[in-house]
């Protein structure tokens, strides 16, 4: 594809890409930046664009850019100093503090909590935490990228640990993890 053809493509699909970015990242400036990043990434990988599916292909790149942005924003917010999670600093390297909390649970209670999780967390958690699959195997079974499954497992552990803390503090027992 020539630069002129790509320029026409940018003109044609910029509203679509911006809409996808803005629906996933509400901040206008960030959505605009992600739109530009999407097209630059598209230019680098233009040979892989399936003919006739430009719309879906660009929307997929935009979703990936938004995912990366939201993931790092979430990690920054969750791991801010003062978070209760960081108080569990006795955990050995590579051992998530939330896992400590979950390991202290009885098997029956843990099973109940995992099966009460909503999707997209229930299936990978069941496979990894109850059926002892690795994250890579679970990703294959779920049909999801391994990195996505790892991120979902990490968030699910945090949710479960938070749910347990809420229970211990005398809060009501919820059937599902609330967002």
């Amino acid at each position, binding site marked *: 594809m020539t630069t002129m053809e790509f320029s026409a493509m*940018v003109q044609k699909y*910029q509203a679509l890409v911006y809409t996808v970015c803005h629906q996933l990242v509400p901040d206008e400036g960030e959505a605009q930046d992600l*739109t530009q990043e999407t097209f630059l990434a598209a230019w680098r990988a233009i040979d892989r664009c399936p003919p006739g599916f430009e*719309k879906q292909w660009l929307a997929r790149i935009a*979703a*990936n850019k938004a*995912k990366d942005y939201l993931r790092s924003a979430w990690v920054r917010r969750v791991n801010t100093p003062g978070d209760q999670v960081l108080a569990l600093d006795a955990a050995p390297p590579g051992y998530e503090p939330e896992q400590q909390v979950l390991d202290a649970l009885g098997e029956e209670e843990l099973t109940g909590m995992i099966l009460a999780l909503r999707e*997209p967390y229930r299936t990978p958690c069941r496979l990894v935490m109850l059926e002892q699959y690795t994250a890579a195997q679970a990703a294959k079974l779920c049909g999801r990228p391994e990195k996505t499954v790892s991120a979902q497992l990490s968030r699910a552990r945090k949710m479960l640990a938070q749910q347990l803390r809420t229970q211990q503090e005398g809060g009501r027992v919820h059937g599902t993890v609330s967002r």
Partner: protein
Amino acid sequence: MELFRDDGCFTEEGLHALLSGQLDEMGRLEAAEHLAYCDRCMDRYTALLTADALETPPRSARSAVMGTIWVRLMQSTLGRGAVAAVAAVLALTMWRSGSLMQLMQHRQLTTWLPSASQSQTEETDQRLGKPVEDDDRPVKENENLGKPVEDTPHRKDKLTMADAVNGLLFGSDARRLP
């Protein structure tokens, strides 16, 4: 409101919540993760993004994107040659516009300024306490004081182009070379 069905794909109400911007931060992250790999949901989602559902970006992305692409293309194809060409064009422009000569004249004047000529050498130490004499100026210049200025093209102290370039490349001493 459930965003995902048991099979892991979007519910209808989840998809419409995404389109209407009703999802919270966690919901948007989960939706982005799902759209990044699920072809079925991507097809459903893009099918709903019809012309009337699209938003207009605050400013066009085309000029910024194409500008960045052009710069990267230049860097990858031309490399250092491009930088050298730009430098040559700049030098030629400066020469043609006369700003190079102005720059050199400015540099010549600044060497006569007190701050430039007063260095703490033995010679200046010996003169401490004596009346100040403006003896740093060339004698020839003092003789010309009060006389009409003649802007003759063949003045001996006028800089040539070669002097100016030497001065730029090798410092102020180079232009005094014969």
